């Protein structure tokens, strides 16, 4: 065991994992986090706390992690390279580990021009792959990127993201291979709507033997409306939403119900893709739907290692 997190135990026991996302609030009020943690406890193995996602200022991911841990819920903190240089990244890794956070997802980060502080100076001292490599060296050898050796290294389970739908497509499986070499233990993918394309990517992933080296969680997003589908199709960079999905949402009598149904069908499909070891449910601003989706997809009860 690298960190002994619940998520790691689920993977190590060979069970199909479920992760979901809890978006930290745009305020100093911890109540929404506590509320969601209570509501979602037992419905996923770990919950991602986004790190100022789309460069919008929110309650910090590490602080959010501590708040949900008080409710007995396991966090995956996201750590982007946009706002922190190597000093802050390594420091926050130590800090998070000291607070009991065991899963860290390494991301380059959305550019600040997408957010609500467009005048910000960005950092990008590292990219996500360098971040993984540095964190991996820090946890295994206790060695900082600058060479200093620390006495008590952090015990961390390291994750990454990958987007099979961004160009150049032919480099995407290879990029995952780089992340494996850099030290990633698990990978959460970008939301999948185009199953054929995802399976083509998985073919390449398996051909390279990567599915044996990293636990892949297939990403899904339940949609509330046809507008949401259109938005993701046209406005979100690197996301592919096929027309038949948009049409299905458009033609639905009850768009929300259809969105849930579609998401459950996607999970059912993804469960049977060889090399997929779990799903990652990104119910953005719709966290309350996660229990229903997990239940309908036949993923309950979640493994419990405490008893």
């Amino acid at each position, binding site marked *: 065991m690298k960190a002994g997190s619940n998520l790691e135990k689920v993977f190590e026991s060979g069970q199909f994992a479920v992760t979901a996302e809890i978006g930290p609030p745009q305020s100093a009020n911890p109540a929404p986090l506590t509320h969601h943690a209570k509501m979602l406890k037992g419905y996923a193995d770990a919950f991602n706390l986004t790190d100022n996602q789309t460069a919008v200022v929110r309650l910090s991911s590490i602080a959010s992690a501590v708040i949900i841990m008080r409710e007995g819920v396991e966090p995956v903190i996201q750590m982007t390279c946009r706002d922190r240089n190597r000093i802050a990244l390594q420091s926050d890794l130590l800090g998070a580990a000291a607070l009991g956070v065991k899963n860290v997802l390494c991301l*380059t980060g959305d550019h600040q021009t997408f957010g609500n502080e467009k005048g910000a100076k*960005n950092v*990008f001292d590292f990219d996500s*792959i360098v971040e993984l490599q540095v964190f991996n060296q820090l946890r295994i050898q206790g060695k900082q990127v600058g060479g200093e050796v620390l006495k008590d290294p952090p015990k961390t389970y390291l994750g990454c993201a990958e987007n099979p739908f*961004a*160009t*150049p497509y032919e*480099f995407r499986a290879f990029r995952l291979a780089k992340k494996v070499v850099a030290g990633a233990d698990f990978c959460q993918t970008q939301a999948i709507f185009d199953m054929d394309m995802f399976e083509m990517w998985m073919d390449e992933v398996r051909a390279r033997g990567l599915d044996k080296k990293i636990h892949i969680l297939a990403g899904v997003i339940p949609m509330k409306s046809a507008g949401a589908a259109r938005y993701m199709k046209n406005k979100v*960079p*690197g996301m592919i939403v096929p027309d038949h999905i948009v049409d299905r949402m458009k033609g639905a009598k009850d768009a929300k119900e259809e969105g849930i149904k579609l998401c459950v069908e996607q999970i059912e499909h993804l469960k049977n893709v060889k090399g997929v070891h779990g799903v990652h449910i990104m119910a953005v601003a719709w966290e309350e739907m996660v229990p229903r989706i997990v239940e309908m997809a036949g993923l309950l009860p979640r493994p419990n290692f405490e008893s």
Partner: protein
Amino acid sequence: MIVAKRKPLNEIAEMLAPYKKVTIIGCRSCVAICLAGGEKEVKMLVSALKIKNKRDGRKQQIEGTVVERQCEKEWVQEIEDEILDSDVTLSMACSLGAQTIGDMYPKHLTFPGLNTGIFGVPEEQGVWSENCVGCGNCIIHTTGGICPIARCAKSMLNGPCGGSANRKCEVNLEVDCAWSAIYDRLKLQNRLDLIESVTPAKDWSASHSGGRRVIVREDAKLTQHQKKGKGVT
């Protein structure tokens, strides 16, 4: 070359408003080639300011001149009288030229007429793109001759990021994704192996992160004796 863009007329007029005598100084180097601060642009600005002053009822004496390279003291010295005869100098060079005048005549006011932008290359008439940020440690022999530090919005060393669609940058859909371009170039050169391994953390100490940089060429420096000799001639 260094590519700059003239500040808006109103901003320049506002900057110069309190002064009676203004000298506008252009530069025949980079900023002339990028159509921002050469002889022609100085003449145009002098005319525009005169028209504006007339309309606004402001009395101001405005002269324009141009030097070969405003970032070199020897050239600036040639127009010392014109500089010191004015209340304020508006530099139409890049910030290097403006700062050279400022450093030479610290009591005199020198304001910038341009916004200095990028180390850029002309793509077509009137379009320049940033291809270098002067990081001090060039790696483009490993990236197909394309700089990811300057040309990727996130300066990724192991790109492309997950936001690249149709080989364009998510930050500006008009701009090519640097890492898509790197991938294509290396594929063309049959050198994709170069990006198959992980590129480790970059040492940024040679960049501006290491503080203001001074490049010294000991072999090119003049000896005390030579400096003395130069002074005589």
